[in-house]
C-alpha cells in the first residue's frame, strides 16, 4: 500500500516535471515564433518607415551608411514643398471623385446583377453565370489598347468629363464583386423572399428592402476593396489623362511626381505618405471586412 502510494507520488512528480518541461518548451517556441514574426514584419514595414522618415527629414543626405530612420531635424517642409511642386490638393479631390463614382457605380451594378443570379429562376441563368465566370480567366492582354481606341472613337478623350468617364467606366463591371454578392444573397432564406412576394412586393423592393440590408457586411467588404482599387490604380488614368496634372488622380500624380522630380526624393516621399494615409486608415478600421471580402472572393 505504502509502496504504491510512493510510486504514485513518483509518477505524479514525473508528470509534473514533464508538464513543466513542456511549458518551458512552449515558452521557448513562442519566443522563437515572436522573434520570427517580428523579423518578417520588419521586412514588410521597413520601406514604409523609410518613406515616413524621409518625408520629415530636412538635412543631410537622403541615404546614409548605415541607414538612419530617426530624422535629425524633423519638419513639415517637405510637405509644403510637395504642395508647391504639384497640385496635390486638386489631385486628392480628383481621386476622391473617381473613388466615389467608381465605388457607387460598381457596388450598384454588382448588387443588382447578383440578385437574379442568386434568387430568381429564369431561362439562361446558368449560361449567363458561366459566361461571366469565364471572363475571369479569359486572357485580355489587348484590353487596355482596345479600351483606349474605343474611348477615342466615342469622342470621350476630347472633354474633361469624357476623360473621366473613360477612366472609370472600364472598372465598373466587377466580376469578383458579383460573385461575392451572389454568395451572400444565397445565404438569405428563401422563406423571407416568398413572404415578401406573397405580400405583393416587387423584386426591386425585395432587393432594396430585404436583400441589401441583410447582406450589408459583404456589401461593405466589396465597397472597401473597390475603394482601395480605385484609389490605387494609376496606369490607366495616366494613359487616358495624358499627364494633365490638374486632372490626374493622386496615384497617377505620384508616379508623375517621382519621375519628373526624381531628384527631390524628400518631397516625393511626402507625397507618398499623403497617398498611403487614407488607405491605411480605411484598412485599419475595416480590416475585418477586408479579410472577409478576400476569402469570399476565392470561395465564390
Amino acid at each position, binding site marked *: 500500500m505504502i509502496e504504491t502510494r510512493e510510486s504514485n507520488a513518483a509518477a505524479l512528480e514525473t508528470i509534473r516535471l514533464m508538464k513543466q518541461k513542456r511549458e518551458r518548451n512552449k515558452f521557448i517556441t*513562442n519566443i522563437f*515564433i515572436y522573434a520570427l*514574426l517580428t523579423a*518578417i*514584419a520588419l521586412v*514588410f514595414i*521597413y*520601406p514604409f518607415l*523609410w*518613406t515616413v522618415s524621409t518625408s520629415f527629414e530636412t538635412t543631410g543626405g537622403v*541615404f546614409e*551608411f548605415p*541607414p538612419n530612420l530617426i530624422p535629425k531635424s524633423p519638419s513639415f517642409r517637405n510637405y509644403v514643398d510637395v504642395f508647391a511642386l504639384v497640385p496635390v490638393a486638386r489631385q486628392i479631390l480628383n481621386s476622391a471623385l473617381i473613388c466615389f463614382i467608381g465605388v457607387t457605380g460598381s457596388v*450598384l*451594378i*454588382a448588387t*443588382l*446583377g447578383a440578385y*437574379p*443570379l442568386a434568387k*430568381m429562376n*429564369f*431561362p439562361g441563368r446558368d449560361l449567363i453565370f458561366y459566361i*461571366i465566370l469565364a*471572363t475571369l*480567366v*479569359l*486572357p*485580355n*492582354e*489587348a*484590353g*487596355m*489598347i*482596345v*479600351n483606349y*481606341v*474605343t474611348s*477615342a472613337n466615342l469622342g470621350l478623350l476630347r472633354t474633361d468629363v469624357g476623360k473621366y468617364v473613360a477612366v472609370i*467606366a472600364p472598372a465598373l*463591371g466587377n466580376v469578383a464583386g458579383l460573385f461575392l454578392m451572389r454568395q451572400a444573397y444565397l445565404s438569405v432564406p428563401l422563406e423571407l423572399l416568398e413572404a415578401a412576394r406573397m405580400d405583393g412586393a416587387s423584386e*426591386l423592393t425585395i432587393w432594396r428592402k430585404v436583400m441589401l440590408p441583410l447582406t450589408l457586411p459583404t456589401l461593405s467588404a466589396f465597397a472597401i476593396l473597390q475603394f482601395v482599387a480605385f*484609389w*490605387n*490604380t494609376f*496606369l490607366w488614368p495616366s494613359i487616358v489623362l495624358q499627364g494633365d496634372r490638374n486632372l490626374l488622380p493622386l*496615384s497617377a500624380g*505620384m508616379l508623375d511626381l*517621382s519621375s519628373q522630380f526624381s531628384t527631390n*526624393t524628400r518631397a516625393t516621399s511626402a507625397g*507618398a505618405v499623403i*497617398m*498611403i494615409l487614407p*488607405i*491605411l486608415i480605411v*484598412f485599419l478600421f475595416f*480590416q475585418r471586412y477586408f479579410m472577409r471580402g*478576400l*476569402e469570399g472572393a476565392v*470561395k465564390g
Partner: protein
Amino acid sequence: MLHSRESQTGIVEGFVMIANTEARVGSRTRFWRNILTAYGFLLPTISFKLLFTFWPIAFGIYLAFTQSNIIETKIVGTQNFRELFGTAEFAARGPSPYFYEGMLNSLKYLMCVPVIQFLSIGLAMLVNRQIPAIGLFRTAYYVPVVTSLAVVGFMWKGMYDQHGPLNYILTVVGLMDAKNPSGLLNNSSYALYAVMLMTVWKGLGYYMVLYLAGLQSIDRTLEEAAVIDGANRWQVFWSITLPGLRPTLLVCSLLSTISAIKVFEEIYVLTGGSSGTYTVMYFVYAKAFQDFRFGFAAAAGLVVAFVSLIFGLINFRLTRGNQT
C-alpha cells in the same frame, strides 16, 4: 382504410391539378414579366461586360490584323505577325527588336510563382495560430498589398538606391564594395531579380490570406488523429495539410502565373524597362502608347494572351493532382 388513403391521394392530386391550371391561366404574363425583371437586374452587368470585356477581346483580335493609329485603320492580314516574328518580307530584319527579349524576361518572371507559393504557405502556417497580437502581424504583412504600385515603386527605388539600405546590408555581408556601391537596378544581371523581389514582397500578404483561409477550412481533427497515430510534423504536412490546400494552391498559382507573364506595371514603376528588365507586356505598351501602332501592339498582345493561356493550362494540369 386502403380505399380512403387512395381517395385522399386523389383529392390531393386534384388540388394540385386545379392549382396548376389556375397558375397556367395567369402564368404566361407572369413568366415573361419574371424574365424581363431578371434581365433588367442583369442589364448593367451584361452591358458593362460586353463593352469592356467581350468587345475588347473581339476587337483586339480584329485590330491585330490591321494597321491602326486610331485616325485610320487598314486591314493588312497577318503582316503584324510576320513583322513580329521576322518571317517572309521581314526575314532580313529578323524578329521585331526586343520582342523575344521581352518574352524571355516574362517567362523568367515565372520563377516568382513557386517562390510566392512556398513563402506564402509558410507565412500562412506561421500566422495560423491563436497567440496574442497575431492580428497585428497579419496586418503588417498585408499592408504592401493595399499600397499602390506607384508608391511601392518609389519606395523600392529608395531601397535599391546606390547608397540605400539594401546596399548597406550587402556591404556589411561583404557582397558589395562599400567605397563604390552600385545600384542593383542599374545592373543588367540583377535588375530583373530585383523587380521580382518587389513583386514577391508586395504579393505575399495577399496569398497568405488566401492560404490562411484554406488552412482554416481543413478539418483539425484529421491532423490531430494523424498525430495520435504517430505521424511526425512533416508527414502531417505532406499527407493532410498540403492535400487540403490543393484547391487554394490551384487558384493561387494560376493567379500568380497569369500575372507573372503579364508583368508590366512593376517594371514600369521601377526601371522603366531599362537594365534588361524589358518584358513582353512592356513591348505591347510601348508599341501602343509610345509608337501609337495600335494594330501591331494588339498582335503582340494576342501572342501574349496565347502564351499565358498555355501556361495557365500547364499550371492547371500540374496543380490539379490526381483528382479527375
